[in-house]
């Protein structure tokens, strides 16, 4: 290897975080394997997903190379654009499966709520960073308002899964930014008290999902069917699993949404408890690396943004696995880096790219 090539390689990989990339690649490979099984050995799905992965990795690489202060500059415009798009969706959006989530832009359709998963923590991190020196209670109030507006718009579509993820991303920022424990306690009490009120605000199908979680057997062929079948799949996998492509619940169509939201049931049935432990370990690896990056991040903005991205990634994984194994209600949250589907993959990789950027640009900031 000539010094030239070595220098070029170092230049190109300077902003890539190897541990994070390694974990991500392992998870992506695992995802392809499970998608192949979940789609009844459908090659087209695997190819499509591979293309999405390449795009997502490209986005990750690109964002890894963008220094965090550039992101600070676009935080406000992106947030404003996102909210405007959400309002347009509410006014002119397409209705798909009873939910108004999509917006026509020229020849294609976009889902602005997806954008908010990154735009909201970006905006809040920017906001706290801007008022870092003079943070008062009112700043937290304003931040909360900045969070609630897009969350309410998304929840109205309705898209409970995305709203939950955006809300959690925002809350993580608020928490990490030092929101008083007293207020946190107060909010916890208030939300407990608000449960009956919130119950009446929920859509029928959302209420049904929560009731179904409490007792899936109440409606075994209707709303409870998905959760019963996925729980059976997980449980019947046992310690060692039934083996790749051998899952009967998978092969015979008993698991719904086998390559997307319920892909974990397929994985769990075929690879068993050992497979699940491996998956938990890989997710934990990503979260741990994210936490390390966040802990040593140089500015409040990067700390808050990195923390929010890391914890949101965890939220994805936890909510999805909790839902499939029957301890959380069914909400449309994909299993990060595993589920089939380009949009969420790109969003997640974008976030991870930002984490890499935070890690690899801190020396520049310090110097």
């Amino acid at each position, binding site marked *: 290897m000539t010094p030239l090539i070595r220098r070029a390689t170092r230049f190109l990989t300077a902003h890539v975080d190897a541990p994070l990339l390694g974990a991500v690649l392992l998870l992506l490979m695992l995802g392809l394997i499970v998608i192949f099984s979940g789609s009844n050995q459908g090659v087209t799905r695997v190819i499509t997903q591979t293309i999405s992965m390449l795009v997502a990795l490209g986005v990750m690489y690109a964002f890894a190379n963008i220094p965090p202060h550039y992101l600070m500059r676009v935080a406000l415009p992106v947030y404003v654009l996102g909210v405007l798009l959400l309002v347009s969706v509410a006014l002119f959006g397409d209705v798909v499966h009873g939910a108004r989530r999509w917006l026509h832009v020229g020849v294609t359709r976009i889902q602005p709520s997806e954008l908010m998963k990154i735009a909201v923590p970006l905006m809040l991190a920017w906001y706290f960073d801007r008022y870092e*020196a003079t943070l008062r*209670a009112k700043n937290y109030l304003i931040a909360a308002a900045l969070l609630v507006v897009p969350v309410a718009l998304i929840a109205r579509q309705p898209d409970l899964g995305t709203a939950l993820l955006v809300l959690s991303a925002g809350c993580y920022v608020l928490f*990490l930014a*030092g929101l008083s424990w007293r207020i946190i306690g107060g909010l916890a009490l208030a939300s407990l008290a608000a449960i009956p009120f919130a119950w009446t605000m929920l859509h029928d199908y959302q209420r049904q999902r929560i009731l179904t979680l409490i007792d899936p057997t109440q409606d075994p062929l209707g709303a409870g069917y998905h959760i019963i*079948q996925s729980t059976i799949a*997980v*449980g019947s996998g046992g310690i060692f699993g039934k083996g790749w492509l051998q899952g009967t619940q998978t092969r015979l169509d008993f698991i719904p949404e086998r390559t997307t939201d319920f892909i974990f049931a397929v994985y769990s049935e075929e690879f068993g408890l050992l497979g699940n432990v491996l998956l938990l370990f890989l*997710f934990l690896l990503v979260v741990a690396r994210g936490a390390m990056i966040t802990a040593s991040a140089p500015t409040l903005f990067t700390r808050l943004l990195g*923390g929010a991205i890391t914890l949101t990634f965890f939220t994805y994984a936890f909510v999805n696995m909790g839902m499939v*194994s029957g301890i959380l209600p069914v909400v449309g949250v994909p299993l990060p880096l595993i589920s089939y589907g380009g949009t969420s993959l790109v969003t997640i990789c974008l976030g991870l790219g930002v984490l890499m950027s935070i890690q690899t640009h801190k020396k520049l900031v310090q110097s």
Partner: protein
Amino acid sequence: MSDLTINPGVELRNSRLELYHFRLRLALASGFVLCMFLLLFARFFYLQVIQHEHYETLAEANRISIVPIVPNRGIIVDRNGVLLAHNYSAYTLEITPSKVDDIEALIDELASVVEITPKDRRRFKKLTEESKSFDSLPIRTRLSDEEIARFAANRYRFSGVEINARLFRQYPHGELFSHVVGHIGRINQRELDQLETDGLDANYRGTDYIGKTGLEQGYETQLHGTTGVEQVEVDSGGRAVRTLSRSAPVSGNNLVLKLDAGLQEVIDRAFGDRRGALVAIDPATGGVLAFVSKPGFDPNLFVEGIDPLNWKELNESPDRPMVNRALAGTYPPGSTIKPYMALAALAYGKRRPEQTISDPGFFNFGGHTFHDSKVGGHGVVDMYKSIVASCDTYYYMLANDLGIDNISRFFRGFGFGSRTGIDINGESAGILPSQEWKMRRFKQKWYAGETVSVAIGQGYNAYTPLQLAQAMATLASGQLSRPHIVDYIENITTRSRTAADAPPPRPLEVRPEHLRVIRQALVGVNREGTGARAFAGAQYVSAGKTGTAQVIALKQGEKYIESRVAERHRDHALFIAYAPADAPKIALAVVVENAGFGARAAAPIARQVLDYYLLGKQPFAPKPGSQDESDDTAD
């Protein structure tokens, strides 16, 4: 509020403090993450280790469906291999009522594609009332190829309707064997409960039919076979994906009968439109050679569920075709009882064969006059003549010398008054009267005058044609055998034959010389007595006895004049016979209802049976009743 706000004056130190607080919170969040992942692990451990077996079972139950494979029902053939009951495969159009909202409308629409008669509709309606709504019920059977094609082209219009290939039972001879072979029909709730009690319900999964009467019922367990099981892997839509395992069904066993279909047909023709019954038995074995009850009915009507009109017609017919006369009809034996009476007299030492009486044509007993059927009497009568000429007075006189209880005890040895134990259900025991019987039945003591009536086969006693035939066979062979229709049961796969189990014959406790006397007299009946006309010119020596049974009791002194009595109140004609006399191969009893004298109506039928069975002669059906009647009126 110290950790909420930052003092701008001491920026550096506070920045450190800030970083410390941030890292503390990050550590808390990481701890939360760890806790949540531990929670997930606990959940996985619970599902995949602790509850693994439970979910494993559920997953297996999801994917494995157990499909019964119905075995072929055994066939029934006569002694020469003539098919009496068999199966054929046909396509049926079936509706599952639970999947259909408006059945009437659906059937109307179906009628535009395949022919559906009002009869089909009635039968279907009856089936829906009797079945569970999720059963698939036939609206049409035996679809033609064209109809199948037409339905297939239109099937998208009919949800809940499908075509199935099924095996159907068929009885090729129709009425001829209706009372022997019986028939199958759809399993009803009562039979289902019975199957459950017997623990046989698993073997009847998928089976729609069960034997209802006759051999079909009596040998149900043999004929049905063992249901096979196929384990099929199904997907969530219930479609079969592949077969996991298959245990083949075991076909039911075939029944090979003692019965002779040709003989049965000869009897059927000999009866013509008359009602009655005939049972013929092989005296050596008890095997039933012919078993006829007239009129019969078409058992094929019942196979697919009988339609209400046909059912009504069968049930309300005055001829009562559904009654198995040979098995359950009880008739006074009339003079056919005399040989047994005479034998009892010999056995109890009450008469010697050569001992004579003088018959004035009547007998007075207890202030009542019993008339002989021959006006003026038979003159001097010994035991031989009493049977050959059928002298009533001889038996009037004998009656109270014997006494009812001796008669009863002796007759029991011939099987009178108890079920023969033949291999089909529904048998009557008949009535063999005794003092004890009358006390039990009527709470009254026995009167000696009643014994006088019993002695000539009137009064209380009443027997089934089957019992009369069994008694005749017993007299011919000297031993009582249980009659059986099935000769052997054939295993269709191993071809092994199992003889129908029967207890060993019970020898009569009668001295051979006494039997010889009676047998000689019975031969005399057909040679020179009341049966002589019917058996004129026979190429074998036969033994027989005529009988005439009163249907209604005549008033004191009233004379029976056939033409004055309503048809259904006329006497029954009876005849019992066996042949050849020296080595009996066949014994029979025939009853012709309301036909008058046994010699005239019943004996010619017996002649045709014996001619056919012994000589292979097809009768050319002489018109009964058109013969010269001069001598036949004596019975």
